[in-house]
């Protein structure tokens, strides 16, 4: 989501599953919804059947999604920016953009700082030794009034629109075809169809998933699509948007709750080492408006931060001690999962917890992972299933050939409950928090996840209470108000993250009127305060468990508008809004662009509609407040300013293991110049001489990651590991369907059955014939499906420069008949 937040303001699917039915054109690219999200994909078939929607699939493989597409277009893995950059060029050069939207709702007219440049594959400010950019030139030119300068006539050479035109003029259909391998006619056909939705009454929607995120330029691929949608005026519209289809059931929720190295709940961020001053920490995050009359929502940062600190440290958090600011760690660098294993290998990590996470299977380069885990002092695995990770020290022959006696890691495995055995909520891709109920007890002695964490914490706290130790204060003083301390209930925890008043709260317009008494649940984050009179564990989820009860458990599925917003079903963050940025579904005067799909509108006194307006409810259109309220200028960003690691405009860079060995756009800068590559990992990159084919990993509809190999029904429907290769390559290599083949990369090899298919065709790229080899991921050495190799034996350790998502989708392999 490191791309959607810089562009629109929030890192989440802009629309939601049911809304896909409202689209006129649906593009599945960087994903395979039919296989990975079949029940969400139904809304594609709905749109086709009842909205006469056109359905386009762009993928290296003819997938199950492609089976239902009106148009399937092949593309070489890792070249989506070239394709989408070509689309941007087409839309601009054919004048197929929604002018009024682009002018009013995007930063097209804003003027960029003079120092900004792009030359020979690099943006201004590059520092080669550190592989990092000084991003200070990637900003707006500021006027004397303190706001960004603007030229609504688009005459200024450095207004965003003109820089955009200039940047993508290089992405001609011929260049696109040469890089992507997509035949030019097919590329143009897609452009033409997308262009039809530049009118206010037609929309395209994009659906993507890990097919975009898992590249060294993944975030920028998503951004390129987001920019296409802004140019077409499709963001905020029903049937429009960029739909990020998340992998796990609660990745959205866990991310919202900040379970990442650098985050706190609700996208608040931890301080860096330098930020010793609390006020300076707040000021840096409390954004100043870049244009006049903007909502600039992050101006509320202090309210959310103080409320969080009150939720965690209660009375101990006071204004005098900066609300316990020093109780939180400060960051010297990002500690993402790729770095964890690098640190393990360097002997700098001693202990590791895997709670419902099987990194041995899901992080690249298995060999490195085994080596890392073997260097730990202790590993704690909390899981309902006997995961591969928990058994990394077991010898399973060719599938996991380790010497147990030499592995000195202590392993403690704790059995947890599964979904069916607990109450609680999950946040889906569409940001709906939905409550679920327990149906049986966990097996044997297995214990609820929250209880396991509570027990560990209480034991640790007891040890600190008895023995003292390193800075025990944050541990000793943490609030723990649960009725049964070692088994907090889901309801108690939900009420805590929603937040409550700690003192009587009065109406800001009438201080004599008490709107909430001390102890009552807040109705929403609008009531949170920065003076310590409110507590909220996750401001973003505020409104989910109020005095009215558990809003996440609501089950009224009525949909009076027919657009599918079901406002009384569960709870959607933020503030129960179903389509983000929905103010942009109305024109600048407040009238819906499309009279047939009216979402929100200005009724003369306030914003209203069939969705909760994602806007300041009483801001009249004449005030000129713009729809992207989380952004300091209120606008959708075609130019990302300094929020992206490798540049404000997406640029095509080759995968780190590129099958063509060069970048036709700028041969001196082949791959993402801002990506972080650890030394040992760099040495393990392969070249085309030994590994000539483009490998890509993916999921199958029959399986879910590495869980369902433990479930009999799933094992029956896809029992044994296989790889997919095209008929042409198979013929060249003398491989027949059903043969056992060896697929190898510079990091290892796997053996699997060969599925030989017409669905993978060779592509002509930069004068070469490129074959793809498809590697489904679901097998391993534990489970009841046939044992197999972990597919990450093959994959390289390099992440996206913004999110550190590993490049699982593009790497080099060889394939041979065994």
């Amino acid at each position, binding site marked *: 989501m490191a791309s959607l937040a810089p562009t629109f303001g929030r890192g989440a699917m802009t629309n939601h599953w049911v809304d896909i039915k409202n689209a006129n054109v649906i593009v599945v690219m960087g994903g395979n919804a039919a296989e990975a*999200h079949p029940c*969400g994909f*139904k809304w594609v078939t709905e749109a086709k059947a009842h909205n006469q929607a056109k359905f386009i699939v762009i993928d290296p493989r003819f997938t199950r999604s492609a089976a239902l597409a009106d148009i399937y277009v092949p593309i070489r893995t890792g070249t989506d920016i070239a394709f989408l950059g070509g689309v941007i060029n087409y839309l601009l050069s054919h004048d197929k953009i929604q002018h009024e939207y682009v002018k009013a709702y995007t930063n097209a007219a804003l003027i960029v700082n003079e120092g900004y440049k792009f030359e020979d594959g690099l943006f201004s400010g590059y520092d080669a030794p550190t592989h990092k950019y000084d991003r200070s030139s990637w900003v707006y030119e500021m006027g004397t009034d303190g706001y960004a300068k603007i030229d609504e006539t688009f005459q200024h050479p450095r207004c965003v629109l003109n820089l955009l035109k200039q940047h993508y003029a290089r992405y001609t259909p011929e260049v696109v075809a040469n890089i992507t391998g997509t035949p030019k006619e097919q590329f143009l056909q897609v452009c033409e169809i997308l262009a039809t939705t530049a009118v206010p009454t037609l929309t395209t929607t994009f659906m993507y998933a890990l097919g975009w995120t898992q590249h060294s330029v993944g975030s920028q691929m998503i951004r390129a699509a987001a920019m296409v949608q802004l140019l077409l005026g499709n963001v905020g519209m029903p049937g429009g948007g960029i739909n990020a289809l998340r*992998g*796990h059931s*609660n990745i959205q929720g*866990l991310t919202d709750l900040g379970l*990442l190295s650098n985050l*706190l709940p609700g996208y608040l961020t931890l301080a860096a*080492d330098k930020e010793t001053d609390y006020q300076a920490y707040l000021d840096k995050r409390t954004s100043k408006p870049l244009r006049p009359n903007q909502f600039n929502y992050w101006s509320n940062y202090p309210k959310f931060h103080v409320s969080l600190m009150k939720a965690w440290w209660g009375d101990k958090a006071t204004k005098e001690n900066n609300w316990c600011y020093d109780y939180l*760690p*400060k960051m*010297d660098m990002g*500690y993402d999962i790729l770095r*964890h294993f690098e*640190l393990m290998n360097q002997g700098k990590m001693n202990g*590791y917890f895997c*709670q*419902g*996470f099987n990194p041995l299977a899901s*992080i690249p380069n298995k060999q490195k992972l085994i080596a890392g885990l073997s260097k730990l*002092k202790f590993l704690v695995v909390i*899981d309902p*299933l006997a995961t591969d990770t928990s058994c990394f020290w077991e010898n399973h022959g060719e599938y996991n050939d380790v010497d147990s*006696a030499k592995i*000195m890691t202590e*392993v*403690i495995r*704790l*059995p947890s409950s*599964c979904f069916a055995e*607990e109450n*609680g*909520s*999950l946040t889906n891709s569409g940001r*709906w928090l939905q409550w*679920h*109920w327990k149906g*049986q*007890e966990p097996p*044997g*002695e*297995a214990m609820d*996840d929250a209880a396991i964490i509570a027990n560990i914490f209480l034991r*640790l706290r007891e040890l600190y209470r008895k023995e003292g130790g390193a800075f025990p204060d944050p*541990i000793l003083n*943490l609030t723990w108000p649960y009725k049964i301390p070692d088994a*907090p209930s*889901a309801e108690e925890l*939900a009420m805590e993250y929603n937040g409550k008043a700690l003192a009587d709260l009065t109406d800001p317009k009438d201080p004599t009127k008490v709107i909430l008494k001390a102890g009552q649940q807040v109705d929403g984050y609008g009531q949170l305060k920065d003076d310590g009179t409110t507590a909220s564990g996750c401001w973003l989820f505020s409104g989910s468990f109020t005095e009215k009860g558990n809003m996440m458990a609501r089950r009224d599925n009525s949909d009076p508008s027919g657009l*599918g917003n079901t406002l009384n079903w569960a709870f959607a963050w933020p503030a129960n809004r179903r389509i983000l940025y929905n103010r942009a579904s109305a024109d600048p005067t407040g009238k819906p662009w499309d009279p047939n799909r009216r979402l929100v509108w200005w009724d003369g006194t306030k914003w209203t509609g069939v969705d909760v307006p994602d806007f300041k409810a009483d801001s009249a259109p004449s005030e000129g407040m713009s729809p992207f309220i989380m952004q300091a200028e209120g606008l959708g960003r075609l130019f990302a300013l300094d929020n992206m690691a490798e540049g404000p405009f997406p640029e095509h860079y080759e995968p780190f293991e590129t099958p063509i060995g060069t970048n036709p756009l700028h041969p001196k800068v082949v791959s993402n110049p801002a990506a972080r590559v650890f030394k040992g990992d760099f040495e393990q990159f392969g070249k085309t001489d030994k590994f000539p084919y483009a490998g890509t990993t993916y999921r199958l*509809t029959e399986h879910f990651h590495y*869980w369902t190999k*433990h*479930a*009999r029904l799933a094992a029956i*429907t896809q029992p044994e590991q296989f790889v997919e290769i095209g008929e042409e390559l198979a013929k060249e290599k003398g491989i027949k369907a059903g043969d056992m083949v060896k697929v190898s990369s510079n990091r290892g090899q796997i053996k699997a059955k060969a599925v030989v298919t017409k669905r993978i065709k060779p592509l002509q790229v930069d004068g070469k014939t490129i074959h793809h080899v498809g590697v489904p991921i679901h097998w391993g050495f534990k*489970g009841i499906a046939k044992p197999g190799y972990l597919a990450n034996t093959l994959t390289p350790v390099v992440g996206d420069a913004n*999110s550190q*998502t590993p490049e699982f989708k593009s790497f080099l392999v060889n394939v041979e008949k065994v």
Partner: protein
Amino acid sequence: MQVTRRQFFKVCAGALGSSSLAMLGFSPNEALAEVREFKLARSTETRNTCPYCSVSCGLLMYSYGDKAKNAEASIYHIEGDPDHPVNRGTLCPKGAGLLDFVHSPNRLEYPEYRAPGSKEWKRISWDEAFTKVARLMKDDRDKNFIAKNAEGATVNRWVTTGFLAASASSNETGYITHKALRPTGILAFDNQARV
């Protein structure tokens, strides 16, 4: 359709036999056309959400027992919740097979311990497990906690132990996990957002 000699014989015999058996009085007066007993009658229905992908389909879980205090519930069938706005009762193959995840033979039932260099698991009690985990954490934290960095700034971090949180666990589990762990100063914290 190709018909082999043997098949021809079979069909002949069959056709003939059926009629002949009837003649001999083997025709059942009531060929009991009973369908299989409907297996959900009187079972307990619980609403849940599919734990796999991010569509979060609504589920109906059917279990034995009525959740009375002394009746232990056991789920024996799962299908889609037709009221759910997104899945409308449908499920994908993974979701349709959730029953076999819930009852997988590879579900863990007891805390276990693997000693350094050992080739096997040893069953331990929860008390032993929690005691061990807390001790390991505290020893590592006390030894490696960084209160101040080289410049003397307060940083209060602990980076020698890492924690991966589950993106399939509930928001409530996620919340308590973050709340309980961050105060230790942990920074090596991640979830499946990247994979």
